[in-house]
C-alpha cells in the first residue's frame, strides 16, 4: 500500500509537470492577445505595440514560460491583464461558489447513488431495477438547460418558492439558493454513479468469494455490506472522481442560468478577453484539482481492493 501510494504520487508529479507545460502552450496558442482585445475601438499599431511591451507579450515564448512557471512555483499566478488585480484573487472569488455547488451536489448524489446502485444490483432485471434505471436514464438524457429552465419556470416564477438566481443573494443567509442548481446537476451524476455501483454489485454478487461466504453461513445483510460493497465500490469511486472533475470545471450552463459567479464563468470571461494569466491560472487550478481527485480515487481503490499494480 505504502509503496503503491509513493509510486502513484510520483506519477502525479510527472503528470503535473507535463500539464503545466500544456496549459502554457495551449493558452499561448489562443489567437489574438489582450492588447488587441482591449483597444478594439481606438486601435492604432503604436498603442498595441506599446501595450505588448508593457505586458511582456513581445518576449519569446520560452522565456515567458520560464518566468510564469517560476512564479507559479512560488505561488504567484500573475496579474490579470484586464483588471490588473492578482489572478489568485480572481480564483479565490470564483472558487467558493463552484466548490459549494460541487460539494452540495455530491452530498446529495453519493449516498443516494450508492443505495440505488445496491438496490438495483441486488435485484438485477427485476421490476424495481428497471423502474429506477428508466427514471435515472431519462433524467440524465434531458439537457441541463432544459431542466434548469423548467425548474425556474415552475418553482421560481410560478410558485415563487425558490430564488431563481444568485444575484444579490448570500449563500450563508439563504441555502435555498442551492436547491435549484443542485437539482439540475443531480440527474446525470446520480445516473452515472448508480450505474457503476449497480454493475459493481452485480459482478461482486456473482464472484466466487461471495458465493463461498454465503455457503459458510454469512447472513445477507452482512454479506452485502462487508463482502460485496468494498468490491462494488471500486467502479463507483472511479466514476465519482470523473464526476468531481466535471462538476468543478464544466457546469457552465448551470452557472450561466442561475448567474452563479463561479469557476466556469470566470474561465469564459478570461478566454473572451484573452486575459492569458487568468486563463492559465484557472486551468492550472482545475488541472491540479483533477490530478488530486484522481490520485485520491486511486488510493481509495487500492485500499479497497489492494491488488492493483501501477507500473510494470
Amino acid at each position: 500500500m505504502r509503496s503503491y501510494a509513493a509510486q502513484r504520487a510520483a506519477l502525479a508529479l510527472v503528470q503535473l509537470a507535463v500539464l503545466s507545460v500544456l496549459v502554457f502552450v495551449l493558452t499561448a496558442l489562443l489567437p489574438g492577445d489582450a492588447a488587441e482585445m482591449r483597444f478594439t475601438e481606438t486601435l492604432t499599431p503604436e498603442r498595441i505595440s506599446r501595450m505588448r511591451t508593457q505586458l511582456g507579450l513581445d518576449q519569446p515564448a520560452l522565456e515567458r514560460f520560464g518566468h510564469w512557471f517560476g512564479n507559479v512555483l512560488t505561488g504567484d499566478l500573475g496579474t490579470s491583464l484586464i483588471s490588473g488585480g492578482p489572478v489568485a484573487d480572481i480564483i479565490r472569488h470564483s472558487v467558493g461558489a463552484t466548490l459549494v455547488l460541487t460539494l452540495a451536489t455530491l452530498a446529495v448524489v453519493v449516498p443516494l447513488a450508492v443505495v440505488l446502485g445496491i438496490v438495483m444490483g441486488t435485484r438485477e432485471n427485476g421490476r424495481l431495477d428497471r423502474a429506477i434505471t428508466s427514471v435515472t436514464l431519462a433524467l440524465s438524457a434531458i439537457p441541463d438547460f432544459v431542466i434548469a429552465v423548467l425548474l425556474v419556470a415552475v418553482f421560481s416564477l410560478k410558485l415563487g418558492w425558490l430564488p431563481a438566481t444568485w444575484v444579490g443573494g448570500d449563500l450563508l443567509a439563504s441555502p435555498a439558493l442551492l436547491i435549484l442548481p443542485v437539482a439540475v446537476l443531480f440527474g446525470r451524476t446520480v445516473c452515472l454513479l448508480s450505474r457503476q455501483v449497480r454493475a459493481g454489485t452485480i459482478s461482486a454478487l456473482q464472484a466466487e468469494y461471495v458465493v463461498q461466504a454465503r455457503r459458510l453461513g454469512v447472513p445477507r445483510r452482512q454479506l452485502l455490506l462487508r463482502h460485496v460493497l468494498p468490491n462494488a465500490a471500486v467502479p463507483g469511486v472511479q466514476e465519482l472522481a470523473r464526476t468531481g472533475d466535471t462538476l468543478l470545471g464544466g457546469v457552465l450552463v448551470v452557472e450561466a442560468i442561475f448567474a452563479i459567479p463561479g469557476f466556469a464563468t470566470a474561465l469564459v470571461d478570461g478566454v473572451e478577453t484573452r486575459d492569458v494569466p487568468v486563463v492559465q491560472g484557472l486551468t492550472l487550478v482545475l488541472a491540479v484539482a483533477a490530478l488530486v481527485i484522481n490520485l485520491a480515487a486511486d488510493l481509495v481503490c487500492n485500499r479497497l481492493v489492494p491488488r492493483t499494480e501501477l507500473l510494470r
Partner: protein
Amino acid sequence: MNPVVQVIRLAATAGESILVDNVCFDVWPGQVTALVGASGSGKTTSALALLGEHGNGVRLGGTVEVDGQVVVDRNGPTSAAAGVKGRVVAYMPQHPGSALNPARRIGATLRELERLHHPTENVVVEALRAAQLPSDPKTLKRFPHQFSGGQRQRIAMAQALTCRPKVLVLDEPSTGLDSITRLQLVSELEGLADGGLGILLLSHDLDLVRALASQVVVLSAGQVIDSGGPEVLAVAPELAPAGTTAAGKPLLKAMSLSASLRPRGRDPILHGVDLAVRPGHCIGIVGRSGSGKTTLARCVAGLHERYTGRLLLDDQSLPVLRKRSLEQNRRIQYVWQEVRGSFDERRPVDQQVARTAQRLRGLRHTEADAEAVATLARLGVSAITAGRPPSRLSGGELQRAALARAVLAHPDVLICDEITTALDDHGTALVVELLTELKDRGTALVWIGHDLGLVAAVSDHVLVIEAGRVIEQGPPATVMTEPKHDLTRRLVRAARIGHRPPDSPPVLTSSNDTRSEPRR
C-alpha cells in the same frame, strides 16, 4: 451411531433434463465418504444439495437429512437449509483459492465467521493450526493476493474449519496441490476425521480416494453405478513403457534466466535457470508450489517482464509479450491452470477457441470453426457443450477448451502449466494423446506439474526446481529411479501414494508404438 448426512433418492432436474437421479449416500461422523466420477457426473450437484443449494432453474427432490434436520424434501429445499450452512455443513469449492475476497484481510473474514458461529470460543487459531497456517497477527493482516496459490487453498480450508462444521464437503481438494502437499492433505483429512468430522470427498483423484475413503459412491451421468467400500474402485492404470529420445537443435532456449516480483531484482523468484527444448521434445518441470515453476512459464510466454538473462527462439532473441509479433505469438502458446477468467463470458466457447486459428493463422471463419470443433471433440468436449457460454462448462471442460485454443494456433512451443489438475484420468489421457501427436509433428513442449509421476510420463527431460533454482535434472528414468536430491526423493515417494507401480519409470513414447488408452 447415526449418520450425520443421509441422502435418499436425491433428484435434480432442469426442465426436461435430469441432472441427478436416485442418488443415495450417507456420511458418518469420523469417516470419509467419496463421490467419484468424471466431471459432469453430478458430484457437485449432489453435494450442494446438502446446503439446499441448486443452480438457476434446477429442481431438487428426494430427501436430504443433515444432522437430524431435513434440508431437502420432495418439494425442494426447506427452510431448515439456511441454518446448516457453515455451522453444520461447510463446503470447499473446487478452486478454493479463488474463493477468497480480494478486498478483505484474511483475518477479517475468519473473525467474522467465528463471531457468527462460535462467538465465545477462539476457533480461528485452532482452524489456522489445523490448516497448517501461522496465526500471528501479521499473517492475519495480509490480503489473499499476498499468498501463494497453495497457501490460499489452506486459507479457504481455515475458513471452513472456523465454522467448526460437523460435515466437511471437499470438491476436488487435491486440484493444484503439489504431491508433497497432497500427502499432507491426506494426513490432515485423516486427522480431521479422527476428530469426529464427517467428510464428503468429491474427487477424480483415485489415489486420494483410496487413501482416505471408507465408503465410495461411483457416479456416472447423474446416477449411482456402484457403491460400497474402496474395493469398488478399479485397479490403478498402468503407464506406458519407456521410449527413445531424438536429436536436434534446441528450438527454445533460456539462458541464466532470473526473475523477480518487484523492480530491480527485489523479491527474486528465479535464479539463473537454463533450459533448452528441441522440436518434438518435451521438457518437464517439477517442483512444489511456490518454487517458481509458473514464473518460469510466464517468462517464456512473455507475461512476466521482470527478468534478466536471455530467451531465444530459433536463436533469435524473444521479447516480452506486448512486443511480440503476430507470428511470435503464434509460435509460442501458453496454457495455464485457472483458465476461467481467460474466456469471454458472453460468447460460446467454440467460437473463442476458433478465434486463435483466425487471428494467428489467417484461417477463414468456417475452417477455423470446423477445426475447433474437431479438436475439442478429440479432447472429449462435445460440440453441443462447446457451443455454450463458458459459465455452463465445468472446470475440466474449460481447461481442455483452453488447450484446444492454444493448439489451434499450431504453436512451435506449447507451454502447459498444470493443465491436468482439473481433469479426471480419462480427460488426462485424451490430453496426453493429443500432446503426443503434437510432439510427433515437431512441437516442443514445456510441461509443468507437481506430480512427478505424470511429468516423468510425458517428458523426455525433467528439471526439478526448488526455490527458483534447478536442483536436479536428467532423463525421467534416472530422476525417478536414482533421485539425488532430498526433495526429488520426496516427490518420487509422493508420486506413489495410492498404488502406482513403484518402479519402471513411465515415459511417453511416440504415438506409433503405444498410445495411452483412456483409463477406467
